[in-house]
């Protein structure tokens, strides 16, 4: 692999719980090459959003403690002072969020909110920034951009707002875009439009993409590689097609197989059963063990993330198991 743009190594995030710390993300490692699109999947509470926020240094330091390394073009983000992080956010690394309804400031026009990003990072004059904001709205496919620039967020539909979020995030041509469930709140038809737009925009700019989603279909369309998280850890890191054909980790397999598409019409779905453990109540060994159908001796030991067949997997039985994937 080429020199990575982003390298995450042993990222650990702990949340302040009174006097002690509660580890919510542990031993998360993955890398993203320049221009590469990587998906981050897992069930809710797995730590996807927190990982994304940590990449921008957005977790408040009084609430969260971060350990490990997050290197963007060699620079360690976790040790950067707030002032340096501010110069980085929005310019070299951007983020868009799931809730298009609440992610924009309700009392500023969308044009102002795009121009503001430009002004924070470039020397553009207010007039030039405004003109550029209108162009940016046109680029994300908003009709009548000059008029729409004067609109407030509540005057736009959810899909339109997510387009505005994309325009804001890409305004300064960042090297990496973290998109946290950018289409989850949208209808399939609008989701398809937004995915289309997102892909065209990042490939036109050579921007790398970390796409957080619980929809593996969306990840398959956008990404070449996927990182699956379970209970705060990465459990498998693989090319998307390889994971879909033959997942190596039992959780990844379970996730794929519980999709309604893979069961016969109106037949019971092979669900994983049970629930992910809560932070603070993690099993000492493999975190998936309480729900795993392939548990044997050796599973009581903590599982490291190990390379296997050009992937990384956190299961000592991975090589021996032949697990079903998303192939009917």
């Amino acid at each position: 692999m080429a020199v990575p743009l982003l390298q995450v190594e042993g990222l650990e995030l702990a949340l302040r719980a009174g006097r002690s710390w509660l580890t919510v993300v542990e031993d998360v490692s993955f890398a993203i090459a320049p221009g590469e699109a990587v998906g981050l999947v897992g069930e809710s509470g797995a730590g996807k959003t927190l990982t994304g926020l940590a990449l921008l240094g957005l977790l408040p330091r009084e609430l969260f403690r971060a350990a490990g390394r997050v290197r963007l073009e060699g620079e360690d983000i976790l040790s950067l002072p707030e002032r340096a992080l501010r110069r980085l956010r929005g310019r070299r690394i951007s983020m868009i969020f799931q809730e298009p309804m609440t992610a924009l400031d309700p009392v500023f026009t969308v044009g102002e909110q795009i121009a503001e990003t430009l002004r924070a990072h470039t020397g553009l004059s207010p007039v030039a920034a405004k003109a550029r904001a209108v162009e940016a709205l046109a680029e994300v496919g908003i009709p009548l951009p000059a008029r729409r620039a004067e609109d407030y967020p509540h005057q736009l539909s959810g899909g339109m707002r997510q387009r505005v979020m994309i325009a804001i995030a890409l305004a300064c041509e960042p090297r990496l875009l973290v998109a946290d469930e950018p289409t989850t709140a949208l209808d399939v038809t609008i989701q398809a439009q937004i995915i289309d737009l997102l892909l065209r925009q990042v490939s036109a700019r050579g921007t790398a993409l970390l796409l957080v989603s619980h929809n593996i279909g969306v990840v398959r369309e956008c990404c070449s590689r996927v990182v699956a998280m379970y209970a705060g850890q990465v459990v498998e890191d693989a090319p998307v097609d390889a994971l879909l054909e033959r997942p190596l980790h039992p959780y990844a397999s379970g996730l794929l197989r519980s999709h309604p598409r893979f069961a016969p019409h109106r037949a019971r779905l092979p669900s994983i059963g049970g629930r992910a453990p809560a932070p603070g109540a993690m099993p000492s060994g493999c975190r998936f063990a309480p729900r795993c159908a392939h548990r044997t001796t050796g599973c009581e030991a903590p599982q490291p993330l190990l390379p296997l067949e050009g992937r990384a997997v956190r299961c000592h039985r991975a090589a021996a198991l032949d697990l079903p994937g998303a192939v009917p």
Partner: protein
Amino acid sequence: MLTRRRSRVIRHRVAQAVPTLILVSLVSFLILHIGPGDPALLLAGEFPTEESIAEIRQLYGFDRPIWEQYLSWVGQLLRGDLGLSLQSREPVMDLILNRLPNTLLIVCYAMVIAFVVGSVLGIAAAARRGSLVDRVATGVATIADALPYFWLAMLMVSVLALDWQLFPATGAVRFLEDPLGAIWTATLPAIALSISGIAQITRQLRAAMIEVLASPFVRTLRAKGLSPAAILWRHGLKNVGVTLLTVVGLVFSGKIGGTLLTETVFAIPGTGSALIQAAINKDYFVVQGIILMLAVLVFLVNLVVDLLYAVLDPRVE
């Protein structure tokens, strides 16, 4: 700035104001008529005679139906005629116009103090929650609320004016004749008048700003690389604008009533002290005129607040 929808909202608000104005005039009118006893008897002075009562009844038209009296009173009102003071035989309108500048000066002055101090304290407290600033601001707000007003005013007069001689203790200087002197003289009463407003604005603004800073869009702003200062002063301030407006409107209305006490304590010849004097002297037309004037002032403040809502909040329906 003003879209068609917003101008429609504004027209609507102004139209809604008409019934309120009519109500205000009715209440002021009825002050004299609903009260116990015969108004003519009230007006006839200490030693009424049958003839003088009849004369008064005739003079003021008390023998006519009440709605007719009201209409003719409103007619006079529209011509700027509030009647004559029973005490000084001076037109009530002149009396009010003479004293109003003193009242307006301390009210506006107190508003400026309450607004500036309250906003700074409230925003600083919200920006650094749990910090020393926050504890001081919350403490100030709590104490300011608990202080007996009269005691505070007396304390200020005795320490700042009499002991240290920083400010004149009482009285007023006409603003148009000596603006600086007038402001100087009004400082003590304005501070006294502003205290509860400071508490109110600090508390409300702190709560509103904390809520705004916790909203999801703040995360977007941080992800864009904005500084905490830009988030607080640009986005935070504009978002709490509506709350600020509401509380300023409330405080302003409260202050207009508060002048009664302040002007009396500081012996300021304003409308508030005049109202109290007139009430003691049973000078009914002055009481009626001043109450009407104060009500109209409160009403105007609220109308301006309502209109500003439509300008400040793009979501206003």
